[in-house]
């Protein structure tokens, strides 16, 4: 089947097996391997990407279901050499260790802050429930997201 998507602003069109998961399409066909696979039951969130600005676990979607979608992966978040404020906050607050859950965690955080720009700690923790990390104990991830929320909108946008 044919699938046509925009990924990080670039158009792609491919023939894929109908059963191809979006995450496999992004990694193996488009060649963007930043989106990681951590499980096979949509539990871990490592494969989280944005579709139309909202976070989606890309292992829960068939590539063909995403036909026509505008997708952002971790590779599309930084502006050239300049990290996105959420990426910057993760670095500043040591919110990653092995870094395997990080792309999904960052995408989930970006989506969370888009929906709720001024979350409480409890809201951040609940909002991250679908993304597992085995290294950080979440302490610094929560701290980083709360800090990113405090970055003035204009400096984040500029």
């Amino acid at each position, binding site marked *: 089947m044919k699938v046509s998507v925009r990924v990080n602003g670039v158009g792609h069109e491919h023939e894929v097996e109908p059963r191809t998961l979006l995450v496999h399409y992004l990694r193996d066909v488009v060649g963007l391997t930043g989106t990681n696979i951590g499980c*096979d039951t949509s539990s871990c969130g490592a494969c989280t990407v944005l579709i139309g600005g909202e976070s989606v676990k890309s292992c829960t979607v068939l590539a063909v279901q995403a036909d026509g979608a505008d997708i952002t992966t971790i590779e599309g978040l930084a502006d050239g050499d300049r990290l996105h404020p959420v990426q910057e906050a993760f670095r500043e607050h040591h919110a990653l*260790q092995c870094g395997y*859950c990080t792309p999904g965690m*960052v995408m989930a955080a970006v989506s969370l802050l888009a929906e709720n720009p001024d979350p409480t700690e409890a809201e951040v923790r609940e909002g991250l429930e679908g993304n597992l990390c085995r290294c950080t104990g979440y302490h610094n991830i929560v701290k980083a997201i709360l800090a990113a929320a405090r970055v003035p909108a204009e400096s984040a946008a500029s």
Partner: protein
Amino acid sequence: MTAVEVPPRVVGTRLRRREDPALLTGEARFVADLTVPGTLHAAIVRSPVAHARIRSVDLAPALALPGVVAAYTGEDLQGDWAATLPCAWPVTADMKSPAHRPLAVGTVNYVGDAVAVVLAESEYAAHDAAEAVVVDYDPLAAVLDLEDAASDRVLVHEDLGTNVSYTWELSPDPDAVERAFAEAAHTVSGRYVQQRLLPSAMEPRGVLVVPHPFGGDFTVYSATQIPHILRVMLAVTVGVPETSLRVVAPSVGGGFGSKLNVYAEEALALALARKTRKPVRWIEERSEQAVSTIHGRGQIQHIDLAADAGGRITAVRVRLLADMGAYLQLVTPGVPLLGAFLYTGVYDVGAYSFSCTSVFTTKTPTDAYRGAGRPEATYAIERAIDALAREMDLDPAEIRRRNFIPADRFPYDSVAGLVFDSGNYVAALDRCLEIAGYEELRADQARRREEGDPRQIGLGLSSYVEMCGLAPSRVLASLNYSAGGWEAATVRVLPTGKVQVVTGTSPHGQGHETSWSMIAADRLGISPGDVEVLHSDTAVAPYGMDTYGSRSLAVGGTAVYLATERVIDKARRIAAHQLEAAEEDVRLVAGQFQVQGSPDRAMPLAAVAFEAFTAHNLPEGMEPNLEASSHFDPPNFTFPFGTHLAVVEVDTETGAARLLRYVAVDDCGNQINPLIVEGQVHGGIVQGAAQALWEEASYDDDGNLVSTTLADYLVPSAAEVPTFETDSTVTPSPTNPMGVKGVGEAGTIAAAPAVMNAIVDALSTHGVSDIDMPASPQRICRAIQEVRP
């Protein structure tokens, strides 16, 4: 003399990690991200039964599918192995170890045991084909319960004649133990169950072997913690000369011990790349990992304490029954021994005996999981000392105070035969209680008890000491471990003055690139940004013992430090020659070699390096270039310690336990980068708390693992845990020149007993004195009901 501006020391600062940008942008390459044209994808056919004879394996239906290139059974590959999969720790001379082939031959011995392998042109095709293979099994009885296994009622491996792999004892003075129990004013006994755990690194395992058929070489890319050990072991197992193997650990997404192994799939990928002359790739799926990657823990612990009338512990007696699983993996039998020296904990105990019986079961092999033996030991002694406090009606903080090894007794000769390097246990306890506001918490607890609040709170203390910095090679020899415990480093100053550090450690989240650059830069007086750190590739870093057991800083970091010192010594000789000064008058200040008393006579490190490179004017007889190595074998372990306090609210009506607060005071000696230290503690706490509250690899009566997905095996999310309150005390180690100890496992070691002590404390007025882990709502409700009159 003009004042020289000395740059601030970088060691001890919260330098942000250099590893992060690549990981934050998706640029980092994990093994599953690597692609080589022409790669064959491997999928493994695994046993769905716990114990059976293999009657037949029919590969034909798989081979008939499109895209399938080859398929093999265990019988087919019999001639491809030079040896069985390795166990490097034969703890006793008569230890029983079954032959462990990468693919089973004759029988399968656990659910997940590998039976056949399929190679196909795509991952999807390989998985389809693996499902098409038809295996006919003749089922045998499963062996699941440890006590039943020890009885030899049903044998896992008939040829061994017993399920007992070994019995190991440490009993320096049995009479003293007997005497102490005979004379004790108080005794307490505990039977604690260490449930099996799934290490659950977020990156599953994976391996890609690329052959170079005409050169005869292979490059092995593996999600491993141990590229160096893996290279040696693959050479031995698959029969490829060590010189023909290059092992690379690319970005590795966590390990926690689960990637400290030599796995069947790594040997298979190498053997099949040799056979097919094509790159072979295998990537583990999560539900496959549950059965194919080692499990942690799996012990039944019996511990008895004897104490005098003042509550001072006079003897500790321990009997373990340890679950090896179906086979011995790399260090499976050694895990209980790593705990054996620590069952007396942080306490000054005069008499001790330990024995461990290790048995085979029809389950996934166990092996080292974060802490490996030390969390188990700490759990037993910390649960038991709380039981003693209850028996004597003493506060848990008070009973610990009465028993701590006093700060003035270090170095301390422990009854188990180790020398604890340094410690100040009471200081860590005091600081922890102060941060927590212990008295107010006790008052809150008393109020809730008085009011009959259905939501009770419990306070759980855990004071721990661990042995890190694995390990003095002579000690490993005395424990029959097959290798040494040293670590290697090379430091070279390049012609432009930039510095390369080559390390034998193999980080997978610990931030060694950042920390090692700090160590070298700090000594050389340059910016850490001018130091690159090379690792995890046997072609670049030929010597190494890799990363596990909180060893990397205390052993590998020390090697970096010592190699840097050697570079400085040589550079000083070159500078003295160039500056026409006596060597002893030349000092390294802020990255400049200066003649003492003549600050205008100086050479920056870069200029010295360039002189060493051109070799135009070096001291007579000196070899060119500025490079030095160190192979550091530590004279002793290091002994980090601390006290943690968990505050848990238990709903006595629903059985729900919630972690309200968690205070951790850890002492890992001097800290290179406190940001990284704190991160290690946070993650460790959640893994330990998860054992106490949520995680369990549970089997049904037929030997099927029932928790095979992250929906069933409850790795906690951010919503289940609080923000932590952490602090540290600093008691430098005298074991190494930087005074460092290691911190990778501390949180995990301390947390499980802290949380469980808190739950028991919350329910003690209900008459509950013990609950098994994980303390699920069902278990808590049952415990309350069982003691209800």
